[in-house]
């Protein structure tokens, strides 16, 4: 039997829950078909979530899943442009014609990129330096120093995969317009892995402290709000703290989803709930960082 996982027509951090809910218990016993034919748009978060699911299934030694590519030529071209199919082909049996990746200028700051080790973090930071300045300073109206903070946030987010996930992960960065939520341009960092997640990472040092409250939500709270790390090294945990300060300064948003919970630091322009618990299980951790264009009056 094959279970069909419907890829949401608009696939972002909000519709992610619909996607995650499609798997049932994890890892699913059945062969999976990811049906993306109706996809109209996917954020970097949605695209690397699909790759994460494919990777997690491979790591759980489940049958290689199928992926039907979007019907829309525009959507296919964009997915090719951001590098999604390059890696999807390694994890899925692709059904449908995949176009060659178009070249030339685009809003993609960083293609879908695997993060397997320290060298990848260096490469990601090097690669984004130039485009980050062009888009964050040039288009979004942020001060030049914000572009460095943005690269720093990217670096620290990717390092969390290397240091905590126990497996590899994915990162992608793009600028686009948040029409409904904000009506402004944003730069978005999406980072995802299929690893052990925050709860297991912090369990040995934090579970006792939280007692019955311990779970995915409490683990996210320990990491994001209290800057706790699984390492006893007192210098640890500063990366997320630094990201929070940067986001506070620029009215940005960070969300971390791990296991069955999602914790967000929500700026005034967004209506997300700070903590979502008892969500459908999804492996590893998914991080999204959003930096909005500065409003004209703030420039």
């Amino acid at each position: 039997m094959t279970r069909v996982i419907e890829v949401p027509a608009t696939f972002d951090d909000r519709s992610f829950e619909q996607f995650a809910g499609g798997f049932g218990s994890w890892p699913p016993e059945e062969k999976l078909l990811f049906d993306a034919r109706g996809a109209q748009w996917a954020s970097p978060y949605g695209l690397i979530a699909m790759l994460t699911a494919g990777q997690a299934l491979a790591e759980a030694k489940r049958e290689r899943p199928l992926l039907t590519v979007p019907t829309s030529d525009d959507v296919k071209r964009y997915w090719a442009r951001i590098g999604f199919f390059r890696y999807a082909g390694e994890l899925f049996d692709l059904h449908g014609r995949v176009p060659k990746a178009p070249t030339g200028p685009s809003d993609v700051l960083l293609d879908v990129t695997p993060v397997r080790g320290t060298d990848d973090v260096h490469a990601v930071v090097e690669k984004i330096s130039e485009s980050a300045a062009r888009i964050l300073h040039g288009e979004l109206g942020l001060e030049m120093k914000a572009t460095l903070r943005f690269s720093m946030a990217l670096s620290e987010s990717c390092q969390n995969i290397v240091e905590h996930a126990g497996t590899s992960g994915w990162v992608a960065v793009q600028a686009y317009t948040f029409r409904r939520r904000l009506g402004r341009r944003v730069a978005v960092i999406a980072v995802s892995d299929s690893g052990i997640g925050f709860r297991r990472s912090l369990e040995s040092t934090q579970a006792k402290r939280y007692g019955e409250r311990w779970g995915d939500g409490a683990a996210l709270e320990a990491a994001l709000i209290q800057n706790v790390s699984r390492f006893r090294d007192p210098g640890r945990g500063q990366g997320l703290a630094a990201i929070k300060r940067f986001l506070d300064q620029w009215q940005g948003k960070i969300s971390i989803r791990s296991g069955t919970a999602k914790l967000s630091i929500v700026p005034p322009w967004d209506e997300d709930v700070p903590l979502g618990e008892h969500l459908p299980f999804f492996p590893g951790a998914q991080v999204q960082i959003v930096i909005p264009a500065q409003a004209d009056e703030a420039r």
Partner: protein
Amino acid sequence: MIQTIHIGRLLRESVSGPYRNLVTRPTGAAIRGRIQETLAESDCLTTLLDFSGIELLDFSCADEVVAKLLLADDGRGGRFVVLQGLREDQHEAIEHVLTHHRLAVAAVAPGQEHESPRLLGWVTPDGRAAFRCICERGAVSAHELAAALDWAVARGEAALEALAIHRLIRAEHGRYHPLPIG
């Protein structure tokens, strides 16, 4: 004697690509190891860690290179470490990690070794006032500092001792000297 360690050169020798960004803990730990080796082999009283040519310095790397170098105090003997060539955003990263550990270091701009260094990290307001006074006046005793700042002598002594413990000034025969960087 003063020696300069070029962090950009160590970075190029420590990672596989021609990178200009000082990021990740393993990279920071590798660079700190090289700095400690150089310090162990050197007789120089002062070591300038030169960050010019470095683009991004992230918090993890700042923690590994600077904070842990200062924490591993045994390897420094009676010597001084001063930072040089930092950009404003790099000042902020180092300031943050050092404050977290309640540590401090002095930083100078390249070619401006004769100007007052800037303190980064955790220093009390009294410590900052005492440091500024020594940079302006030169070597002082606790009595002279107290008189200059209109403090009780004990307050001056406490501020100077704290600065000396963090190797932000040099204590010698009851007098406290500016960092030997000129």
